[in-house]
């Protein structure tokens, strides 16, 4: 069946399409690219982090975020070479700000089953915890939707530093 000419021609065309795609991607040194450039703005100075109080993960003492996830965000900011600009609020408000491009990273004991995955980018789970009923839950962070370079950088950092279940 490979002997027939038209098939050959189409195969070649198909290979050319695929080849040019890979070539095109190879021309962009850092794939994936952020459509809105989140990773670049973070690296150039400021990480706008949003936290929502959640027991153990995020606590607010004297207006300052504390707890495991606040510390995690501080570590990431150091890794990225950025200063943190904190926003404290409810999840819905924080997610809206993520969508609007006003925040870069959101934490607050959010699990991998979060309904916000429709609106925001969700990292891979980086640790587990048990909920009130003793069921295991997987904890994630939220990033702006479609900012894939930034998401990849956060996940790279988590891969390097966390247990990653």
């Amino acid at each position, binding site marked *: *069946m490979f002997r027939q000419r038209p*098939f050959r021609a189409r195969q070649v065309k*198909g290979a050319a*399409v*695929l080849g040019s*795609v*890979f070539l*095109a*991607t190879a021309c*962009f040194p850092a*794939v*994936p*690219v*952020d*459509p809105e450039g989140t990773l670049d703005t973070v690296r150039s100075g400021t990480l706008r982090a949003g936290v929502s109080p959640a027991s153990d993960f995020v606590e607010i003492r004297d207006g300052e975020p504390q707890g495991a996830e606040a510390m995690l965000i501080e570590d990431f900011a150091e890794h990225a070479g950025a200063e943190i600009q904190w926003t404290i609020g409810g999840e819905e408000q924080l997610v809206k700000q993520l969508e609007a491009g006003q925040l870069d990273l959101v934490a607050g004991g959010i699990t991998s089953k979060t309904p916000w995955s429709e609106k*925001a*980018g*969700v*990292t*891979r789970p980086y640790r587990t915890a048990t909920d009130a009923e003793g069921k295991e839950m997987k904890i994630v962070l939220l*990033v702006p*939707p*479609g*900012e*894939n370079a930034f*998401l*990849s950088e956060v*996940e*790279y950092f988590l*891969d390097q530093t966390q247990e*990653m279940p």
Partner: protein
Amino acid sequence: MKNAAGTHLPPEQRELMARAARLELISIGYTALTITLVALVVGNSQAMRTAWIEDMLSVLPQLAFLASLQFTRKARRYSHPYGYHRSMGAGHLVAGVALLVVGAMLAYESVSALVKLEHPTIGTMNLFGHTVWQGWIMMAVMALIAAPAVVLGRLKIKIAQPLHNKLLYADSKMAKADWQTNAASIVGVAGIGIGLWWLDSTAALVIAAGILKDGWDSTRSATSDLLDRRSKGVDGTDPHPLIAAMEEQLQSLEWVRTAGLRVRELGQVQHTEAFIVPEAETVTLAQSEEARKALEGTDWKAYDVVVTIVPELPEFLKQD
């Protein structure tokens, strides 16, 4: 009238039919494999998801073919005097409508993602301790699984033509075009990779349009066959070349002044009614049988031939 005509295919066609069934089984097995593989990496890309659903849909005509095959094998009987050949047509219609509906849904999803400016999020995977962008893996999988479907399609189309099986023909054409779906999904994911978020939904829209076209073609062709349209070749030759061949057979008989044929498709066989205007006032039983046997001998597809002696040809058999 011998029951065998068409119900039981001649040995060569029976062999082809068995091969077609084997190829369809292989196709289904292969598709099950690709569906599983893609499920592992599908992620948030609209194009990938559309291609994935298209993979699942591609099983429909294959299942319809295998199911219909069980029916066409049945011999005709008192309650089903035409036999069960039409089951191929019914299967063709069901598969066509399913493709249309799902194609429309997928097209709507892609357009609405574009309108809502949804930016697809694709993160990383941890591959042996390395953080790898999932888009690379998606593109690699789609490139890897593209070829075998095309090869299966080429093999099937070679069988579909001699079998005059439109369901199989539609299925092979879909399989032959399958690499375009994979290429489109790769373009979509690559678009996400270089920050062109809209390229993903646009690629998904292209794939959905392909599904819609397959659905439309199948639905139209199956419906017109079920409406007893004049028989056409699988590749669209109209009228079917067999009709002219059979008319010639009749014209060559000495006692025939003129003749017309009404031929409709019952799945892969042709239900044939011959209208003959004789030279003389009287026609013998032997002459009428001679005509019938001449027609049935033309091709295995000539099935259930009925001969009618008429004073003049009916209007509808004359060309406009």
